[in-house]
């Protein structure tokens, strides 16, 4: 697989896995408006993910040797790849926990997506530039919404503050990986197709600090950063997610309704 395909799959997988996680809230949100908000955000994420998978499928089908294989589709990429083939970062596969943990995960990821897509709009790859330009506007709303919630909960009651701080403490160890470039990200940066993720860290950190300060939340000190997801080495969570996500297509191959 070439580096561009690997990178596009990484982008697609990030969104698909967070979609699956957020989707667990559908019908269970704390109040109706917020149930609708988290599922609307999730709808944007699955839409972006489909664009990336469709692009990746095209790249795979046009690559050398593809003629002998079953053509890839957005569905085959989502439903029929194995755990080690998924390149999503570890943050998005973590459990929903309580509302505070879901919100914190969304905020940390939306802030990352915001700065990533902001740059990727100017990609030399026309397809990625187009997807990113659209996604950037969508993610701006996600970032505003999740920032407001982090502030509301962090600077809220004693209990909401404690829960949100616990969420930050739990999730912080998965944030370092986002900014550590893999071989495919280095290649994309060299070709000016995507920004080097390490170059996004400063803006991301500034945004997080700004919001955390207002939310009276502390960034944990001296955290050991877990990595591996972007290379296919995941936490135990991903297996459970894929079991549920892929069950139907694996049990009834090609099922449609």
């Amino acid at each position, binding site marked *: 697989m070439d580096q561009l395909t690997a990178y596009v799959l990484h982008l697609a997988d990030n969104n698909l896995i967070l979609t699956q996680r957020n989707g667990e809230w559908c019908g269970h949100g704390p109040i109706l*408006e917020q149930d609708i*908000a988290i599922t*609307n955000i999730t*709808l*944007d994420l699955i839409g*972006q993910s489909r664009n990336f998978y469709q692009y990746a499928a095209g790249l795979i089908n046009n690559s050398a040797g593809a003629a002998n294989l079953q053509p890839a589709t957005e569905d085959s990429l989502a439903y029929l790849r194995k755990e080690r083939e998924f390149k999503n970062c570890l943050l998005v596969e973590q459990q929903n926990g309580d509302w505070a943990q879901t919100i914190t995960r969304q905020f940390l990821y939306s802030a990352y997506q915001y700065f990533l897509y902001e740059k990727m709009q100017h990609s030399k790859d026309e397809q990625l530039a*187009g997807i990113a*330009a659209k996604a950037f506007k*969508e993610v701006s709303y996600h970032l505003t*919404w999740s920032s407001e919630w982090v502030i509301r909960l962090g600077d809220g009651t004693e209990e909401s503050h404690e829960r949100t701080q616990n969420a930050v403490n739990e999730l912080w160890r998965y944030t370092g990986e986002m900014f550590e470039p893999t071989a495919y990200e280095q290649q994309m940066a060299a070709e000016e197709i995507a920004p080097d993720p390490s170059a996004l860290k400063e803006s991301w950190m500034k945004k997080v600090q700004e919001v955390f300060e207002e939310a009276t939340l502390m960034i944990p000190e001296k955290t050991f950063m877990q990595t591996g997801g972007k290379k296919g080495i995941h936490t135990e969570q991903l297996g459970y997610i894929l079991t549920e996500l892929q069950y139907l297509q694996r049990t009834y191959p090609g099922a449609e309704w």
Partner: protein
Amino acid sequence: MVTAENDIRLQKIWDLLGEVNDPEVPVLSILDLGIVRDVKMNGDETEVIITPTYSGCPAMDAISMDIRLRLLEQGYKKIKVSTVLSPAWTTDWMTDEGKNKLKEYGIAPPPRSDRDGQTEVICPQCGSENTKLLSQFGSTACKALYQCNDCKEPFDHFKCH
């Protein structure tokens, strides 16, 4: 001469596209929305090029199908609906007529994206500027939920994108 004939044929297709409505906001045609980028005749094939509004908008699949059906009904046989992502759709492409239709339908239309500082959303029921945001996410991907502080009516606002 050939060019003129082609223009007439193309205009007929544009007219038909003006009769295809957004399934989620049925008061708007897809031309009002500004998502039809181009119409081409490639030999005996008719190609309609559209740009999606939102990445995950479920209406896009329905719209592609509706375009196909409308043209099939009128005797067009080979129809291709293609999607281009770049440049990305913006609510600035919505026509003024479309914005008026939205307002009459009870949805506050999107402001122009280049209007700095213009943040007030006007109540489509009573025209008051004294309104408040209830939720940035509404009944569909394109809308936010507002309420009027004067007439108290809740209403949808088509978000600026």
